[in-house]
């Protein structure tokens, strides 16, 4: 069963790689979905460069959001920052009620069209999952363990670095995984404000009534999401196994 799962992941990865390198090979598969002799493969920008751009934007936003959210979570779980805890939680929750499209559209006058408003929207959306999971992970470290670390003469910083963060790492990583997957999907919507992501392919398909474009854009994003999700799950599993031993 596990072998089968691994085999289909590898097949998915290979398929995605070949599709991005030589999309023209797949033209016959997509051709029945087009009408009026429209091209079967998106030709406005190369799919490979759009994919790389999409990934770069997602990666940068997830990295920035994770760094800030983790820093904040560490801060509010220290005794000195404890008074900020309930409030920061409420704020992060309220932030999630802003629809991505609204964030994109409203930041355009400040940042212009393109990647910048998309980055900001992804960044804002990425904060909550990491923050919530880091809070859960850090406050889930049992008081006995913390006390033992304190008893062995560790300073607060040492306890954080050597005990609390390693113990909370799998849960924090799960938060980063959620954040990355959400960003990957939201980056598609970024093309409504002219960001160079795979959403461009989907929107081009919607505007010209070409289902082949919509399908290939959607499929690439879905394949990326499945592969990235699995990679994170694999690392999480390894971390948990190391903690257990």
């Amino acid at each position, binding site marked *: 069963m596990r072998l089968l799962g691994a085999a289909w992941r590898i097949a998915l990865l290979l398929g995605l790689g070949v599709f991005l390198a030589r999309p023209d090979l797949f033209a016959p598969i997509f051709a029945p979905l087009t009408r009026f002799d429209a091209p079967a493969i998106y030709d406005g920008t190369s799919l490979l460069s759009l994919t790389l751009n999409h990934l770069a934007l997602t990666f940068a936003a997830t990295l920035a959001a994770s760094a800030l959210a983790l820093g904040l979570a560490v801060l509010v779980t220290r005794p000195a920052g404890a008074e900020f805890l309930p*409030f920061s939680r409420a704020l992060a929750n309220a932030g999630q*009620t802003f629809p991505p499209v609204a964030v994109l559209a*409203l930041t*355009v006058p400040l940042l212009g069209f393109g990647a910048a408003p998309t980055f900001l929207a992804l960044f804002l959306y990425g904060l909550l999952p990491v923050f919530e999971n880091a809070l859960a992970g850090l406050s889930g470290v049992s008081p006995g363990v913390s006390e033992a670390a304190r008893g062995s003469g560790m300073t607060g910083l040492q306890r954080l670095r050597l005990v609390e963060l390693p113990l909370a790492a799998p849960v924090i990583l799960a938060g980063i995984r959620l954040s990355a997957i959400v960003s990957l999907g939201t980056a*598609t*919507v970024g093309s409504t*404000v002219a960001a160079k992501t795979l959403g461009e392919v989907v929107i081009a398909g919607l505007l010209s009534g070409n289902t082949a474009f919509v399908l290939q854009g959607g499929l690439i994003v*879905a394949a990326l999401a499945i592969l990235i*999700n699995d990679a994170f799950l694999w690392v999480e599993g390894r971390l948990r196994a190391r903690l257990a031993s």
Partner: protein
Amino acid sequence: MSVLAAPVASSRRVDRLGVLIALVAILGAILPFALFRANRIVPGEGGGIAAALPPAEAALLGLALLCFLAAAVLRVPAAVKLAAGAALLALACLLVGRSAGFLTPPGNSFARVAPGSGFWTLSFAALLLAADALVRLRLPPLGRVAVLVLALALLGLLLWSGAWDGLSLLKEYGTRTERFWAEGRRHVALAFGSVAAACLLGLPLGLLCHRVGRLRAGVLSVLNILQTVPSIALFGLLIGPLAWVAANVPGARALGISGIGAAPAFVALVGYSLLPIVSNTVVGLAGVSRSVVEAARGMGMRRSQRLFRVELPLAAPVVLTGIRIVLVQNIGIATVAALIGGGGFGVFVFQGVGQTAMDLVLLGAAPTVLLAFTAAVLLDAAVEALSGSNRRKAER
């Protein structure tokens, strides 16, 4: 001794979060309070509080700001902080409406006055202080709903009284009033209808997954994959199949099913809603302790009685949490439906982006955020009330 004691005493009297909020408020006071534009699409010129308002009203706002800063920075009871935040917010909202009449030359119907970044920052600071106070007051679920209803009533009063009629946002509204409510109804129907349909499908499916262990992994992984397809693409992909259904299934067209429009958006929203509802139903039912179910069996309850009187009520808070996630998410994603002709508030957002008319974007975005926020508060309160009543029953 007194030298050493002084900083300790002052740090106890100063509210550190309040200092942060006060800094945001000061930034808001420096940034332009209102924007004046010669017509609806040119970039605006900003004016500070003193430039955007008649002197007496500017002074009043300044005074309110000083009171606000004091209430924020000092350690005063949460109720005082709440009052200070609410008062500044109310005054800023009232006065930004007044600035429209003050800045617009008489008889000029092209000029637009919009709230500036200073107004938004100031309101944000006021909301932060009020929100922090509400968190500290630890209101019971009903109390929070009451605060929400009061706030919405005040907002309704503000809009109804005509105090904002001079602002560009309401001028955009004025020229498309009917369209606004029609798209609003469509948005609500899409978001709430899809969640209702997803509940009808997802709850039995979750129950089935709970009972039949072999089904669980398969169903959840299919729903997981569905979740990874980005919303715009899923909307687009459903156009084809639904167009086929409309053309080939008798009566489908009469039901309003067609390739473009609301039908593919509705189906896609239902698809996105299934994963959280099914997985939370499974988790909630799995969390019901075996001993409780055994006790119910011992009391002679039949299988269906156990399900409806014991298992489902105990799982309800977790299931409802899933519904809350989905509802807030769908209210947001429904804006994207406008791209495939599905309507909803997204229509104004995308029109606004196309015309670079930010007031129009706001006309679509503001009610969406308000709707999502209201839904989140109401359902959070319901979840808390349910888990509270379960806990009380368990103690008895």
